[in-house]
């Protein structure tokens, strides 16, 4: 049973909450926003970026009670026979409002709802979508099963009543890499990883649009709670070879060329080299946190904050190597 410790004191438990706990909880509280937080209206307006291809761009912010967790990009592709949804946002309300936004554009049914990876800003809107359309890579499904509950608890704490009635819905359809017609649309799935254990990239061949998930950030510092940096950089290298016409990053603006890929890769490269060097020169973790961010990345949104989080995620491994401790 989920016994005493975890039941009686579950209010104190936020298992794995640290994976996402941002450093500045209510960072954006005072900022003026178009969104109406009293009505919990995300103000979602899909933007058409190609024929039948839409994006709902999230804010380059951290989770807050002001933005309701609308910090990641979601999107959808309208085929001849239905709609393919790419990520469902951070809450039940987000998912519901996203469906309303889709319905304003097309009467076609949602036939496939993809969770690109198991981070909460990408799947907690699942409740609003037909359960049998929910789909993800097997490792993403496992990640949602294992950590989804803790992520959900944590988001209630971070964004408050925006989360009302949000529950974890685990996708049951297991996706694999490959190219096929979905809803009459020529879609290719790439099963990559590095940001998390499984990151799914969706390519719409007709329009040349690549939904790169959180393998690519644009103008916003990458997050690393489940990162495997070498694998991530490899995945970006693979993406760079795609003949894409436009890139939809997981966070940040849609871009026509590969600049966001280069930027993400450069940051990850700097990050891992910095932490390795810090460990190799005998710095304590608290000291590593105080190192300055390289000038070229200082314009990235949230970079100071994400850097310090990344030290916690990545420094221990670098340190073990430096200490010769397994």
């Amino acid at each position, binding site marked *: 049973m989920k016994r005493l410790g975890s039941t009686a004191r*579950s*209010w104190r438990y936020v298992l794995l909450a640290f994976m996402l706990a941002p450093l500045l*909880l209510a960072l954006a509280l005072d900022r003026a926003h178009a969104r109406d937080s009293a009505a919990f209206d995300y103000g979602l307006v899909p933007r058409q970026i190609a024929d039948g291809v839409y994006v709902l761009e999230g804010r380059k912010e951290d989770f807050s009670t002001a933005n309701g967790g609308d910090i990641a990009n979601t999107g959808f592709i309208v085929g001849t026979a239905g709609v393919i949804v790419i990520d469902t946002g951070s809450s039940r309300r987000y998912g519901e409002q996203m469906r309303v936004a889709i319905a304003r554009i097309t009467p076609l049914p949602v036939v496939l709802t993809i969770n690109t990876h198991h981070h909460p800003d990408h799947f907690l809107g699942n409740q609003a979508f037909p359960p049998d359309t929910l789909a993800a890579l097997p490792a993403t499904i496992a990640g949602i099963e294992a950590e989804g509950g803790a992520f959900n608890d944590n988001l209630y*704490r971070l964004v408050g009543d925006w989360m009302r*009635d949000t529950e974890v819905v685990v996708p049951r359809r297991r996706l694999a890499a490959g190219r096929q017609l979905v809803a009459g649309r020529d879609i290719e799935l790439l099963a990559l990883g590095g940001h998390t254990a499984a990151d799914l990239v969706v390519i719409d061949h007709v329009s040349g649009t690549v939904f790169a998930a959180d393998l690519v950030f644009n103008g916003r510092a990458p997050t690393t709670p489940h990162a495997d940096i070498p694998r991530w950089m490899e995945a970006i290298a693979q993406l760079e070879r795609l003949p894409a016409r436009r890139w939809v990053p997981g966070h940040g603006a849609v871009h026509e060329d590969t600049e966001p890929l280069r930027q993400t890769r450069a940051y990850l490269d700097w990050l891992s080299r910095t932490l390795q060097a810090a460990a190799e020169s005998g710095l304590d973790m608290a000291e590593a946190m105080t190192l300055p961010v390289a000038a070229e990345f200082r314009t990235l949104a949230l970079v100071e904050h994400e850097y310090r989080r990344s030290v916690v995620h990545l420094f221990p491994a670098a340190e073990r190597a430096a200490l010769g401790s397994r």
Partner: protein
Amino acid sequence: MHTPLRSARRPRLLASFAATAFALAALNAQAKGVSDDDIVNDATITTQVVTHGLGTKGQRYSPLDQVNIETVKNLVPVWSFSFGGEKQRGQQSQPLIHDGKMYVTASYSRIFALDATTGQKLWKYEHRLPDGIMPCCDVINRGAALYDDLVIFGTLDAQLVALNKDTGKVVWRQKIEDYKAGYSFTAAPQIVKGMVITGNSGGEFGIVGRVDARDAKTGKLIWTRPTVEGHMGYTYDAEGKPVDNGISGTTNATWPGDLWKTGGAAPWQAAYYDPDVDLIYIGTGNPAPWNSWLRPGDNLYSSSTIAIDPDTGKIVWHYQSTPHDGWDFDGVNEFISFEYNDPATGKLVKAGGKADRNGFFFVNDRTDGKLLNAFPFVNRIDWAKGIDLKTGRPIYDEEKRPGNPFAEGVGEDKKGKVVFNAPSFLGGKNQMPMAFSPKTGYFYVPANEWGMDIWNEPISYKRGAAYLGAGFTIKPLHEDFIGAMRAVDPVSGKIVWEVKNNAPLWGGVMTTGGDLVFYGTPEGYLKAIDARNGKELWQFQTGSGVIAPPVTWEQDGEQYVAVVSGWGGAVPLWGGDVAKRVNMLEQGGSVWVFKLHKS
């Protein structure tokens, strides 16, 4: 040495002995059932304990006096029974005694039937609990109810199970509520007019408090009464379909917006019943969430005593001891019917007494709820300067409400101003029931002296998740004691005597015609003290902390005393600095039974 049972002189008892003799004659034919008369007269039938409270009024007074201030020194153990298993945790059960058998519940929703004279196990029922149960304050159970040939108890997954009391086989099972939404059940059910009356637990999870009445023989619902203003009450027709029976109070009168939909006010202790005025009394818990800034208003019927008409399922009166509670001052403590002569007029007053979590002892007219007297029973109370006897409302010290986390100037962590307040949220008195002696006219109150730092923070309701919006640290107020067993005169409002205890008192109390007060301590002792002056006369080390109320009965001319032992409950989970006074205590799980040794 053997002292004859002096209580047999009482005429009413003679009648009950006759009934016992008759039953004994028929012993081999069929085990005796528990009748409505047995229940209504439980306080005076000394051969049994068939109700929670030694009588439905809950006075926990037994007229037995074989064990008395003279003889108690000869009290020795007769038998002890271990609940066994790998799981222990807190044991808070009050045993029931009927027909030579003991029915005692244990942690993790277990119940045992034992031979009351030998301790031999007759049967055991162990409830299969799901993984997701959410008891706030340990996996405890406070006891069962007996009716006819049934023994009925509630489980941590918020179900009610009726077993055949002779075989332990399940006769009926009913779901009280959905444990996944944070509901649980730990109290003892009470039988009133053939109905089993239960509340529910889960006030820390934003559940909706409710009192249910079921046909005790079938488990079928008769009525339900929500204890949060705005919710509809129901009666149930022959097919079990709900029929509207009026909303509790007026929607949004004392709650803003839709906060009442998750308003807490769980009546998580036993109901009591006075057949004389024909009312059910039950206390209600804290409003949810703890953070009171989210719910301006009195938040009825949280932190109240409510009186319900057993025939209609409607609230007849209520008295709210902590309106707009901001300190987790549940009003669940037992409202005990008693009588006294008004010192001014000499008239007999039908009253009820309650030692509240908030530190005040309240005396109300039990026919209409009118406040008659209110006075502190603990040394320090910060949150209110007193209770206005005219309005019945507390005179708040607004400085002692945790600061508003939404106010200007609150830091980016949204933590409101920390205030120190006594009593702590564990209360001047908590779940451990007090006793009233009609002989001395005193209440015997297991009190605790502690305060807390408490602060508020934002919180959002999430089904099945803790819903507090507050943080806290409990602190003892004195170096040498937290617990204090106190004799309280409800008429004068004076504390007549006290016996201090290092650890917080968490077991209940019983008083007897032998001028004794029995109670247990976390240190493991069952103690007997002189009801008139608090002199300590006897104690026995039970091997683990005692956090359960004792009982007594007589069988074959001998008076027995029993108590359950097993440390746990809320204190070690929530105790803050108090943990230092209790973290050396070990768990256990057993019943001890005592009687006078014959030399």
